[in-house]
């Protein structure tokens, strides 16, 4: 028999909204990564996929804000005023913020393009890796990890599944995986002459 004088704090602390957040981050990071590759090849589809990535990041940030118990305390500013590289969430915050900023500037044709393309690529990779990092640190919750990894891990394959069938349907906008197939012949990316 096990009894408690008051239960410990073993209740659910992350809910379905967190699962949605991780999946949205995976999708946003994946689309942003593909958009960055298309930008580096100066492909015309880059703008479309950048817009999709921006929309997914904005949606994800809204979900995060809406489900946060601290949504009206505005303490999230500390994510960007402190340096905590040991924390996956710190990386996720910077990855999403920089991907949104660089992707937004690229979409608006503002700023140093070549530098922004590389920032967009790196930031999208950080965002893509963040859900896995966030779950990997919780070694003391193996069941939770297994459940969340099962939810999260499909998101990159979803992207592949989206891109693969359209590989034979060029030209067309629904073709993110083209960035990969065209990559070897287009590297290094050409730098526009002044």
């Amino acid at each position, binding site marked *: 028999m096990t009894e408690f004088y008051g239960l410990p704090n073993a209740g659910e602390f992350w809910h379905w909204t967190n699962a949605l957040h991780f999946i949205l981050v995976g999708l946003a990071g994946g689309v942003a990564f593909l958009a960055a590759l298309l930008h580096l090849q100066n492909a015309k589809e880059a703008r479309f996929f950048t817009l999709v990535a921006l929309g997914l990041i904005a949606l994800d940030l809204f979900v995060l804000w809406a489900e946060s118990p601290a949504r009206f305390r505005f*303490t999230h500013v500390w*994510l960007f005023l402190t340096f905590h590289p040991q924390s996956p969430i710190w990386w996720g915050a910077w990855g999403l913020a920089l991907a949104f900023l660089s992707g937004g500037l690229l979409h608006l044709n503002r700023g140093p393009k070549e530098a922004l393309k590389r920032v967009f690529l790196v930031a999208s990779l950080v965002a893509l890796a963040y859900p896995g990092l966030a779950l990997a640190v919780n070694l003391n919750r193996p069941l939770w990890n297994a459940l969340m990894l099962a939810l999260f891990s499909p998101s990159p394959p979803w992207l592949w599944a989206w891109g693969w069938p359209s590989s034979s349907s060029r030209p067309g906008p629904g073709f993110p995986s083209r960035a990969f197939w065209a990559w070897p012949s287009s590297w290094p990316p050409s730098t526009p002459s002044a």
Partner: protein
Amino acid sequence: MPRYAMTIDLSLCVGCAACAVACKMENEVPPGVRRLWIRERELGIFPDLTVEFRPEQCLHCANPPCVPVCPTGASYQTKDGLVLVDPKKCIACGACVAACPYDARYLHPAGYVDKCTFCQHRLEKGRLPACVETCPTGCRAFGDLDDPESPVAKVLKEAGRVDVLRPELGTKPKLFYLNAPSKKGLTRESEVHHD
């Protein structure tokens, strides 16, 4: 700097929950959540029966898994070994709640993570934590681990048996359980007999 630690002598604890009540009152812990709770377990069958009353709370680990996962530095460790939360920096992301293997943290309804502080506000005034001060059987001791004259160092030296929760995790808790009633040490859920 002191290295604060606490001991609970399980052979003296009667499970009266006075510590839990004192903690609630001292720290104004809201209903539905708690910084301290007591686990009661019966092991075996009469006449070979053991009952364990085990108060649990934040263990103020020397190697706390909850601190590095915090993205804003709200969760931190003081020089005297206390693991604390700064509510002004907490974004209530729950990463530390997830990382704590002892379920010691909770989301305060005001929108930040809260937990036992070893009553730091009382320590600053030279007083003992509320749970230690209120315990009617004197099963709790508190003090500086590095001071051989401190109550905590003395009882640790004299204890027949010393255990910590989940030592295999390498968190190095600074809440020590003394003289567990079972010869095998602290009880585990898998050992409990369910009727």
